[in-house]
Every structure is written in C-alpha cells, then in structure tokens.
C-alpha cells in the first residue's frame, strides 16, 4: 500500500507495507536510481517523498511501537549525528539532537572499519577511550595512537568507546536505554557502553517503523 523510507546520510532503510519487505540500500544508490517513498524521514528525505516526518518524531513513534513498557529512552546513533527521545506514558521527558559535537561519528567508525579491514564482531571493547568530540578530531587522535604503536584494533576500540561514552553522557547516563540505528549491528560499538548499563538493541528500522502511525487507518499514505 505504501513505501516508507528512512533516507539517512549514508544508508536508506525502506519498508514496503504491502509485502512487509524491508531492505537497506546505500543512499548514493537510492539517489542514483531515483528511489522514492510515500512517506519519508531522514537527512535526505525531503527530496525523496511528498511527505516528510521529522526524525525525532519518527524515532519516538518507532520506539513506542517496538517497546511495550510505559517508559522509553531511545538513542539513535546515525552516520552524521546523535539523537534521543525519552517518553513516559507518552509524556515528553527529554530529547535532543546534536549534529555538531557528535558529528560524523558513526560514519567515521564505518570508514575506519573499511579502511583497516576490521571485523567489528571480533574486536574486544577497550576500557580506555579516545576523546571523540567529533568524527574528524577523533580520527586524528586514533592515527596518533597507531603511530605510537598501539595495535589498530585497540585504537579503533578506544575510538568506539569514545563515541559510546559521548552518546551515553548525552542521554544523561541512564541505567538502561534502547539503541537504534546501524550501530546496533556493530558489536564492538554496542558493547563499548559502561558494562553495568543495559543496552537493548532495536535495530536500524526504528525510524521507518515510526512512519507507520502516519498512514491512514486503511494503510494509505496521505500528502
């Protein structure tokens, strides 16, 4: 009945509500192939659909659909930014979205993985961290470590820990929270939060899921 899309900076997540098919494609390919959706969210959404839903609203609605508990705190770590929403019984307790201090952190982690050929599932988290105010500055620190003889895996693990700790402080250091986005599939990253913290992985379709409430009762998309 409708194609729902989360057109992120580097990855596009799509849901066909008719068939239930979900898929992830590179945003550069989505652009090249003129991929469109009926309702969209994400950094590149405005040019891809007649109707746009802002990412914080999509994140909140997606979280509400996926979590049964009355209180939800969902952190979304994207390629270029970090955002969260905190609700209790539908009441807003807090939210924020930073595209500056957390800039490009997810993207940089992916870039480093590809560059060094790292299997993130096989790397153990580090107890040390690199101060990652943004992806670019963090990468500078990482290369410094490598030049000092720190093994690449350990340097990248410190970088991942730096991103995780930044994001954790950003959401107010709770005892438990839900993680949304592609970083759910990065085992090193989601194990880099403090050990005592319970991190529930919601996967990378949370924002797309959050577009479903925007459909009409018979499942259509309205403009």
């Amino acid at each position, binding site marked *: 009945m409708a194609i729902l899309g989360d057109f992120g900076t580097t990855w596009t997540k799509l849901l066909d509500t008719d068939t239930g098919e979900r898929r992830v494609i590179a945003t550069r390919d989505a652009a090249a192939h003129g991929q469109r959706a009926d309702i969209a969210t994400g*950094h590149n959404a405005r040019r891809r659909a007649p109707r746009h839903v802002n990412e914080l609203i999509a994140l909140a609605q997606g979280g509400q659909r996926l979590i049964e508990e009355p209180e939800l705190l969902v952190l979304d770590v994207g390629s270029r*930014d970090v955002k969260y929403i905190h609700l209790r019984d539908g009441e807003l307790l807090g*939210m924020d979205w930073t595209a500056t201090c957390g800039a490009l952190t997810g993207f940089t982690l992916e870039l480093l993985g590809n560059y060094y050929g790292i299997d993130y599932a096989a790397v153990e988290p580090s107890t040390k961290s690199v101060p990652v105010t943004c992806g670019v500055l963090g990468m500078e620190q990482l290369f410094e470590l490598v030049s000092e003889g720190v093994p690449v895996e350990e340097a990248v693990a410190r970088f991942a820990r730096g991103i995780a700790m930044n994001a954790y402080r950003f959401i107010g250091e709770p005892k438990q929270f839900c993680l949304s986005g592609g970083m759910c599939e990065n085992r090193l990253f989601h194990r880099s939060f403090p050990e005592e913290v319970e991190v529930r992985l919601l996967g990378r379709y949370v924002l797309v899921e959050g577009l479903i409430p925007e459909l009409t009762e018979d499942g259509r998309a309205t403009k």
Partner: protein
Amino acid sequence: MGEKRRRVGFVGCPPEDVLKAQGVAELVDLDNVIEGARPRGESLLPRTTCRIIRRILDNALSVELDEIIVDEGYGKCDAARGLAELLEDLLDVPVIRTQNDNRQSAGTPISDSALPLLRKVELILDGFVNPQEVELTAQPKPRAAMWGVPAADFSIYEPFPDGTQVLGWTRCLENRTPAEWELEMYVPVGVPTVFFAQTFCPKNVVAQHLARRHDGLHVDVDGVLSQPVRAKIEAFLRFKRVWD
C-alpha cells in the same frame, strides 16, 4: 534642492525621546536585516560573537550613516557596549550612547494577539521605523509561547501555531521597556514554551534555566536555523499536544 535627509542608525531599543529628537531623520534599525549589507565585520569580531552583534557591525559598515545611537543600558549586553567602542574607532560618525530605563508600559497587543508568530515579530521589529496599523484580535488562550530575543533567522517562528504568545525580551521591546527584568522573566503557567537565545548570547543562562523551571524547550541558534533545532521544536510542540 532640499537638504539631504540625515540617516541615523540605532542599536537596541534607545529611549523614545532620543529617537524623537532626531526629527525628520531617516532611522535605520541596525539590529535588523538590511538588504545589500555585506559581511564586512567578519574579521573584526571574535568567533564567539552572537549573530545579531555581527549583523549590527556588518550593517554599520555597509550603510552610510550620519550618526549612530546605541542603547547600552541594562536592556542590552556587554557585547553591544563593546561594539559601541568599536564603531566609534572604525567610523567617522558620532556614536551616541544612551540607556533606556523606561518603565512606562506601551502595552503588548501584538505579543498577545492571534496573529502568526512570524508576523508578530516582524511587526514588533518594524515598530520603530515603519509602525503599521494592524487590526489585532487578542488570543487569551495561546496554545504555545516563544520566549527570547528576536532571532536572526525568522524561519524559527514557522513551526508554531497562530497566536503563539511572544515572551522575553521581544515582549519588552514591544512594551518599550527593554530593561524590565520582571516582564522579561514572565512565563505563563501551563503554556508549552520554547526558550530561545542566539548562540553565544549570555541570555542562554536564563533561557536554559527557565526551560527547566517551566518544563519547556531551550534552543540556541547561530544564524541559520538547523534541521535538528527545527525538528526539536516540532517534536516539542507535538509531544506537548499543542496541535490536539
């Protein structure tokens, strides 16, 4: 041939009598957008200077003025006082320093009207130079409120419902009491309120505090409104059920 009309720039909200004393002079509000002004002051200010102070300097360097009046009283900030010094050294025009401690209320009919928020701010800012006769309907039960100083990018006012109440220094400006702290601190109980200040403006201290106190949303913007800030405002209004 008549005598050339004097052109007087002003900063902030100078006392009414000082502006009136300019007679038939053309008044130029240096805080506002001036078509054709160029970013000439870029290298003269620290990076941590708010967008409005930057704009004032750019305007003052771009427009030919005969005189500049600066409100450097309690209603303005240290940056404006510093800027007066800078303008005096840079330009060959007299800089008149004034302080506006007026407590005589001119009223806030625009702030409390049913007009769209963006229109309200335009009318308040134009009130000095081009006051307009507009029929105003009061909005006794505003669904939302916006606290703060006038923004550099007016698109910040777009996500709000019509009749959003104007609070903070912008309200003081309409009231012509720019240094009236009690009025600036006024926030109605139970109205979802967004608290705004320019990035790097010291008013962020109180904006953030008031947002906590009144369960509102604090945002700061440096020039152009970013997608995350706009999204935060939209989400705040939605989850506060402003549209229900």
